[in-house]
């Protein structure tokens, strides 16, 4: 079974500054995907960024970027130029690639990010 660990329960950052969220995972799989989801108080999970394990290049999505270290099984998220709207819970998630079956997500425990004005 896969496990995902987020060691930072809460992080605060000043508006326009940068914050990095850590995530480690444990798996014996070689083909998988990793994701960061944002969950604001409205509860709806929003996909922030995703990374395919077979790609060495780190994914980037506007102000969001990841540092994927496959050997270390580490997948951190960097939020640059933080905005007040970034305040939310952030979840790291793992997905094993399974054909002909549901690609369920395994989530970490989450990190609460508070952006201060």
């Amino acid at each position: 079974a896969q496990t995902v660990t987020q060691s930072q329960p809460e992080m605060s950052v000043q508006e326009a500054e940068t914050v990095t969220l850590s995530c480690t995972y444990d798996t014996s799989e070689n083909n998988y995907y990793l994701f960061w989801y944002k969950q604001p108080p409205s509860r709806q999970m929003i996909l922030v960024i995703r990374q395919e394990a077979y790609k060495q290049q780190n994914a980037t999505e506007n102000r969001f970027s990841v540092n994927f270290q496959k050997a270390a099984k580490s997948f951190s998220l960097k939020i640059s130029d933080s905005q007040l709207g970034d305040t939310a819970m952030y979840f790291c998630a793992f997905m094993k690639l399974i054909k002909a079956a549901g690609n369920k997500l395994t989530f970490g425990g989450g990190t609460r990010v508070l952006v201060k004005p």
Partner: protein
Amino acid sequence: GAGVSQSPRYKVAKRGQDVALRCDPISGHVSLFWYQQALGQGPEFLTYFQNEAQLDKSGLPSDRFFAERPEGSVSTLKIQRTQQEDSAVYLCASSLAGDLLNQPQHFGDGTRLSIL
């Protein structure tokens, strides 16, 4: 619809009562997932449907939990004889097909279930 719709948004029930939670996925989405999110924790997988077929129910915590998707569209998660530990947010997600890379999972707003 424009997104995944879940109802009710809030549900309060007394211990021992049965509850039914509804999920209306995005039109045309083949895959449908249910997750349970306890307070302050990440979501945990419950069950998965591909059209009307329930292909994975490994995450259902007990035989009190039952899910169905009879016509391959709307799904209902039913919990019988509810207990306090069932209190959680229940999230539904749908995707166009099983290959998540090209068709990400779209989540609903969830149903917050409180058992008194």
